[in-house]
């Protein structure tokens, strides 16, 4: 089970004040939340690195959290930023099995839906979202993605580039 929004917020407020016990609990809960958040939106082989990079950003940028506001939208903004950064790094991998058991935590269903990566992908044109999903998330080659989508190879590349750029401008949109 993952902590509630209010628990996250209180832990973060105490962590900003220097409470190491609360901070440790906060990071453990963030790790769990982020693992579910990124599930199916990044190659499983890359998820550990992405979660850890996001935790480091949480640590470095903890002063940017406003204690008067909810915590999860802040964590999601940090997570989206790191996710897009990770998708920009070109990598090719085998067709790994996605972890089907990893689904969004139903406890915070409304919040999770509003800040989800699915929602961010849905804000860009479908052709761009498809190119990003197939190449950068599922790990297909450009040729395979072109055959799957009916786009030319160069259009797949352009769509990935444009889609990532557009998503990075929409990180705080819900």
């Amino acid at each position: 089970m993952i902590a509630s929004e209010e628990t996250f917020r209180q832990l973060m407020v105490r962590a900003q004040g220097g409470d190491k016990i609360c901070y440790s609990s906060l990071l453990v809960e963030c790790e769990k939340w982020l693992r579910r958040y990124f599930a199916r939106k990044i190659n499983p082989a890359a998820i550990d690195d992405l979660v850890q990079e996001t935790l480091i950003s949480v640590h470095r940028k903890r002063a940017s959290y406003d204690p008067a506001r909810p915590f999860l939208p802040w964590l999601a903004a940090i997570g989206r930023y790191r996710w897009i950064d990770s998708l920009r790094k070109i990598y090719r991998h085998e067709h790994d099995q996605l972890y089907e058991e990893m689904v969004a935590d139903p406890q915070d269903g409304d919040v999770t839906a509003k800040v989800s990566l699915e929602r961010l992908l849905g804000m860009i044109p479908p052709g761009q979202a498809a190119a990003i999903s197939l190449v950068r998330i599922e790990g297909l080659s450009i040729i395979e993605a072109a055959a799957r989508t009916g786009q030319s190879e160069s259009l797949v590349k352009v769509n990935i580039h444009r889609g990532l750029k557009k998503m990075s401008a929409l990180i705080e949109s819900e």
Partner: protein
Amino acid sequence: MSVSANHLIEGLVEELEPVRALQPKNGMAIVCGLAMVAAAAVATFLGVRNDLMTGMADEMFFLRSGVLLMLGIATALAVVNMARPGVGKLNRGWIWALIAAALFPLTAAIMSAINMPPVEALRPMQGLKCLSVSGVAALAIGSGLTLWLRQGAPTSPERAGWLVGIASGALGAAAYNLHCPFNDIYYIGLWFTIPVVVAAILGRLVVPRLIRW
């Protein structure tokens, strides 16, 4: 949880120091302070325009000052709010200030199309002075704003770059505006727009590299 994640968390907890939550009002205080220093420097070294000194300033001076200040403050507010990210936290009020400010160059362009102004009306030499003084003021304001923003976590460095440029260009031009004696729409539409546009482009090119995290 993986072993490496466990080790990372232990390391981060070990490093923990208390931090003060970033306050946008501190960023605004820096921007306003630098803009006031720039205005004081213009008044001291170049002098305040005569009609303002005598308390009979032209109405165009107030319109120009108001629009530049509104644009500068609205964009600076958007920048300082970008330091504290959050999904669903949109800052789009600056767009309206930008549209209002665009009325000056737009009016000048329409008037020029109807009645081509003589080159003297554009006053190239004074215009270049306006551009350089506004540019130096903008550089000071933009540097302060960028340094402050580095503490935060802006999720769109490119947009932040544009906005830092627009804010510093508008406030730099507002500082020079105290000295500038010209009131015609051709001059204002050209020479008060160029510093904002140049600062915006420079902001877009330079600032994202400095604030990326």
